[in-house]
């Protein structure tokens, strides 16, 4: 990434306030000319990470494409809260078809643009973790392997929030959902299941894959802009906390997203043609316990009796990510 490295620690989080930056380095969100692609008036919950993620990602994509963008949206919270008939929060051409076909819809749009010689217009597909990793996975893999000219963005809030918080293949172990309740000996979602969509995307050797969180706006915007420099299939996976589903404070969405990264539970990296080319190093390592305590979906781990054994298992998952992606290997910037 081209951003200049600054050491400004005033906000206590290593985040750099926009006001301290050169105007050219400020975020898209900080600019007067941001497109407000997902504009105000939608009906997302208070503190919704997905609404933030979609706004950040699409405004960055709109800036990168000079506003020449079409979006295909999977069924899910993002679709429901943004388009209650007859209102729409979308300020770009937007199509919702079904839950499981957003990647194929995007492929079809890209094919139509190509055949019509509309090289100026780009295509984005988007959906939640259920629409992307589960029901839409075949279409997603098809879009990847054909290397269709689509950027697909997954807003991962780690469960089926739109239907009332049921487990998806992105739900972390031990998390309480509506169908992984803390009942029985192994409370919450089981260990040894689930999948990493970014790693599977990389296995398709598509031009660009990245992960991001709503806690690091510069990084998220840079990755969307970087993704738009490529043609072919691209995948950006954004962690978006869900206060409703996670049982967290609406005011803590950003903080929780940051903790997910700083624990190592959600590795933030980017990959080109199947190879990891950059990771966001952990700057202030925190224990998973600090992260888990912010969310009632993990409250049963701190009950009576407390489940130190389960917390240790989750810590070892974070430790494995840190080793695997080298999240502490480089000196903190």
């Amino acid at each position, binding site marked *: 990434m081209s951003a200049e490295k600054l050491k400004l620690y005033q906000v206590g989080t290593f985040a750099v306030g926009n006001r301290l930056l050169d105007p050219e380095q400020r975020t898209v969100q900080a600019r007067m000319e941001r497109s407000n692609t997902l504009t105000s008036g939608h009906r997302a919950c208070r503190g919704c990470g997905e609404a933030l993620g979609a706004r950040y990602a699409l405004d960055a994509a709109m800036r990168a494409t000079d*506003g*020449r*963008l*079409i979006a*295909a*949206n999977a069924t899910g919270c993002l*679709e*429901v809260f943004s*388009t*209650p*008939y*007859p209102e*729409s929060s*979308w*300020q*770009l*051409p*937007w*199509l*919702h*078809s*079904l839950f*499981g*076909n957003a990647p*194929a*819809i*995007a*492929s*079809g*749009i*890209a*094919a*139509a*643009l*190509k*055949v*019509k*010689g509309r090289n100026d*217009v780009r295509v984005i597909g988007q959906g939640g973790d259920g629409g992307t990793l589960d029901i839409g996975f*075949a*279409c997603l*893999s*098809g879009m990847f*392997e*054909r290397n*269709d000219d689509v950027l697909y963005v997954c807003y991962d809030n780690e469960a089926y929030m739109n239907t009332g918080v049921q487990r998806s293949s992105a739900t972390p172990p031990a998390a309480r959902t509506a169908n992984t309740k803390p009942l029985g000996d192994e409370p919450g979602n089981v260990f040894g299941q689930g999948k990493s969509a970014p790693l599977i995307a990389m296995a398709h050797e598509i031009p660009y894959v990245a992960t991001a969180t709503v806690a690091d706006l510069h990084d998220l915007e840079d990755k969307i802009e970087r993704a738009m420099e490529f043609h072919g299939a691209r995948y950006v996976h954004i962690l978006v906390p869900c206060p409703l589903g996670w049982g967290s404070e609406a005011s803590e969405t950003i903080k929780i997203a940051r903790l997910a990264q700083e624990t190592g539970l959600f590795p933030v990296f980017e990959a080109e043609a199947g190879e990891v080319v950059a990771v966001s190093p952990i700057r202030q390592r925190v224990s998973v316990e600090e992260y888990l305590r912010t969310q009632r979906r993990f409250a049963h781990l701190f009950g009576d009796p407390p489940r130190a054994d389960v917390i240790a298992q989750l810590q070892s998952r974070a430790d494995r990510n840190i080793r695997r992606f080298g999240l502490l290997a480089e000196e903190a910037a």
Partner: protein
Amino acid sequence: MRSQLEGSLAVAKAVALCRPEVISAYPISPQTHIVEALSDLVRTGELAPCEYLMVESEFGAMSAAIGASAAGARAYTATASQGLLYMAEALYNASGLGLPIVMTVANRAIGAPINIWNDHSDAMSQRDCGWIQLYAESNQHAVDLHVQAFRLAEELSLPVMVCMDGFVLTHAIEPVELPTQEQVDAFLPPFDPRQVLDPDDPVTIGAMVGPEAFAEVKYLMHAKQMQALDLIPDISGSFSQAFGRTSSGLVRTYRSADADTIVVALGSVLGTIEEVVDELRGEGERVGAVGITCFRPYPLEEIRAALQGARRVIVLEKAFAVGLGGIVGQNVRLALSGHAVSVYDTVAGLGGRPITRRTLRTLIADVLEERLEPDRLAFLDLDWKLVERELQRVSADPRSGPHAENILRDIGSVAASAHGGAR
């Protein structure tokens, strides 16, 4: 130009003449030759500009067609059988969004038991998905219907399914008159979409609609389909003028005007039925035939008019509603409401069983000589001995095993008995 062509190749060439801009394809027998031929035409540049997407499933094929159509491209795909069911959710979406996609269905049975041969179970299962359904009687008819389908779809902004019997038509080599590019271009104007995804004029398509407007949107789907009942005869009239041959629009009658007994059917079996009609006419029987080309929307008035003089109507259909009976038969009864007509529902040709002149003659004789009762579902050529043997086996043994394997063993298709060998 008139040439000897396989049905699939003829349809592929006709589709190519309609200049589809995006084709999505996923292989399933007996649709494969159509999409293979289109791939060739795209690769050689004969069909250009056109994007050919080899997708991962029929669900993906219909979805890509939806995306392409919403972005303003003329979109086409083809499928059959299980593939049509696999795209069912997307079929309803395409019609609900009002996207004028054209699709060929190479009609094939639905499993289980798995069967690749022809019947109409696939298309009939989707008769109410909001697509216009046209059934071809011959390969010439299939070619002509495809050319009309694009115009019909785009004028109404509704998707159209052209059904042609798998193998019977798709793999049959027949003389076919293919139109020229100039003729098709004159008949079919470029696609001017009613709605399009365009950054210069952004619209939201596929918004969530609650009880306050859902019924109205659905009603408009119905109203547009009903418009097709007027539009199809218009288009088929223009087609006749432009191409110099008639092409059935809604319903086609054959020697039915003065007939006492009329056989109603869809698709390629009408050819055999017409031969039998000719034979029986030669023998002095007042028999005729009515072919339903457009099954959705349902041309109730035209069918009523075509059947009103008959005393007996035999509905010969290649699908049925399990637990109820005839599907086409029930629709035909709607058209005959108030008429004193006996309707005979006959299921025939399931899973590719041939419907021959002999069996048709037997059927008609059974009706004329009152060996069949009206309003009772009959199965043409059913091997009752086999069925009864299996029913006895089921009642004698609570673990009698799978029906299909048992029956195949009974008829000798499976040599050794794997299950229940000692019995």
